């Protein structure tokens, strides 16, 4: 409420002045006679901010003045990312097929150098049955499926692929899906990770805002705070942090606690239009991080909401997924978010999860590039750059606990 106390010689004059000061909607709240006239108190209730309006929270808590300008015409710094997936083609027997079938169909290549090669344009290995199994055992066991359309199909209620050997056992421990494990076990782990998955640097959010999306509870808000903190601690100017999480009331509060400390501005943008308005207020060259509400990409309405936010902001989507997920579920989610435009994967909770097959499954399933990982609950140093060497070491360690020589955030 705005309030105005004024004096005039007459009541009509006082009312006229009141309306002049507060507008035609001013209400008369009180009057009293004073020497030489009358004193009136008027009030006006300004229109409420519409639900969905943008609110900018400066580090000091005050609203940010309109002093920002549009950034220079954004350029696409993130180059189109190559898609991975199909194995390189090889010359092969065009008709190579083996179909072990039956209740207990198995193939057991055994020995020090056990190998099973299916080669051909359309090479396929189908194991079907209630208890289908493929066991490759030996120090250097490998399964090679090569060809333009190579596939490994394990079907049945309890189908399993067992690859034995150090790396194969590691992948089995992490519950890496069979076909991906077969691909990764085909070479030393560092090399196969590099060949099968993509590792890139996370864009800085300047050319395009970085939008963190993912299922509820994935750690998007904390990741957002970590990314902002890393920039500030590196001596760079704070990013503009936007929360588009209108579902969880505490989300803005949680982020505000971080942005206050970091000296960053937090924009609370419950609608795509408000998010776009927030971007219009950023300083030239200022990176933007957008935190979003946890969402289910399989729900059409939620998928549409995210698509609308992406359209309004032109943001690059980073999928934030907890490493503790079921691998198949993670792969499905990654595919769904990739369909919405996600190109990067940022797994979280690697410091609290032993088996991280979901990370590999999501990256491979969605064709997403691995960039960073949440490896600590600390905001200040809670992210680690994901690289094949680091990831293979982490996989082989089979533990979320860092070895004594690798304490901290060392790739």
């Amino acid at each position, binding site marked *: 409420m705005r309030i*105005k106390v004024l004096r005039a010689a007459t009541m009509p004059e006082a009312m006229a002045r009141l309306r002049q000061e507060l507008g035609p909607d001013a*209400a008369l*709240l*009180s009057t009293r006679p004073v020497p030489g006239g009358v004193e009136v108190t008027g*009030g006006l209730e300004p229109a409420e901010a519409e639900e969905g309006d943008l609110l900018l929270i400066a580090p000091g808590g005050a609203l940010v003045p309109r002093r920002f300008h549009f950034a220079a015409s954004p350029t696409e710094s993130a180059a189109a990312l190559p898609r991975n997936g199909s194995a390189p083609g090889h010359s092969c027997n065009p008709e190579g097929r083996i179909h072990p079938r039956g209740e207990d169909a198995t193939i057991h290549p055994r020995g020090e150098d056990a190998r099973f090669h299916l080669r051909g344009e359309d090479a396929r290995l189908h194991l079907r049955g209630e208890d289908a199994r493929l066991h490759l055992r030996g120090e250097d066991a490998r399964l090679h499926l090569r060809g333009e359309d190579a596939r490994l199909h394990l079907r049945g209620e309890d189908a399993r692929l067992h690859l034995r050997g150090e790396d194969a056992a590691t992948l089995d421990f992490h519950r890496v899906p069979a076909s991906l494990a077969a691909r990764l076990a085909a070479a030393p782990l560092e090399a196969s990770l590099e060949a099968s998955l993509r590792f890139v640097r996370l864009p800085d959010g300047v050319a395009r805002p970085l939008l963190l999306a993912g299922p509820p509870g994935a750690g998007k808000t904390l990741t957002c705070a970590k990314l902002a903190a890393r920039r500030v601690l590196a001596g760079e100017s704070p990013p503009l942090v936007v929360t588009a999480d209108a579902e969880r009331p505490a989300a803005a509060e949680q982020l505000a606690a971080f942005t206050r400390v970091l000296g960053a501005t937090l924009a609370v943008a419950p609608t795509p239009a408000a998010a776009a308005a927030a971007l219009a207020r950023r300083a030239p060259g200022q990176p933007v991080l957008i935190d979003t509400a946890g969402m289910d990409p399989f729900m059409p309405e939620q998928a549409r909401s995210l698509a609308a936010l992406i359209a309004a902001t032109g943001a690059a989507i980073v999928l934030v997924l907890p490493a503790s997920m079921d691998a198949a579920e993670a792969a499905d989610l990654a595919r769904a978010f990739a369909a919405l435009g996600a190109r990067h994967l940022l797994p979280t909770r690697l410091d609290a999860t032993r088996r991280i097959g979901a990370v590999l499954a999501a990256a491979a399933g969605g064709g997403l590039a691995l960039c960073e990982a949440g490896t600590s609950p600390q905001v200040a140093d809670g992210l680690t750059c994901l690289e094949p060497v680091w990831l293979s070491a982490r996989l082989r360690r089979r533990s979320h606990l860092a070895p004594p020589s690798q304490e901290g955030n060392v790739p």
Partner: protein
Amino acid sequence: MTARRGRIVAIASGKGGVGKTWLSITLAQALAQRQMAVLLVDGDFGLANVDVQLGLQPGCDLLGVLSGRTRFDEAVVRHEEGGFDVLPGRSGSGALADLPGPAVEAVGTLLHEATAKWDVVVLDLGAGLSPATRRLAAIADTLLVVATDEPTSLTDAYAVLKLYGRDRVDGDARIVVNQARDEATGRRTGVTLQRACQTFLMRDVPVAGILRRDDRVADAIRRQAPLLCRYPNSMAAMDAVALARQFAFTD
């Protein structure tokens, strides 16, 4: 579940410096004089000063209770002269100033449990409209909003009433005018705020009391003594007693 006996009366203002803590103390004592068991809780998280105004040196406080280091009954201090009990806060505590939502809910639970033992729990809220202050205001049975005749105080008190109306649609909010030049001026201030609520919020908020400006209030605060002990016959003391008389607190 403990059976409720008493009620929670919260004192809020929006603007600081309008005499909220003084009113909380004086109301607590006035109610105690009516043979009620009264607990005064310092709910001004981070800037608590009930103990300062009363000259208490508490060994335990609300923060200790919330952190589990102190039992609730250990933290309660008896003000013998005033005849009421006090649960002190802690001034300058970052932990209390930034009290997270679940901790605020814990304070609410404590207050509800206190009503099993005390007839009235008087809760001195902090100035402003922090989420913690709003949550605690919303759990009170009655919210007294203190205003003076300054326009800034009126607009801040109005803001408190507006948000309280959202948090508690059926809440019992009342206006108390403090530091009024005289009864008529104070009444006019109260009616101004009341009319603003009627006009803009479609809500009728009664004026519960007018407390006249009295130099002896400042003197009592300086001497760290309750007004009703030091100047029981002063104008402000009589006004506070009249305000307390309005509260029958019978269900």
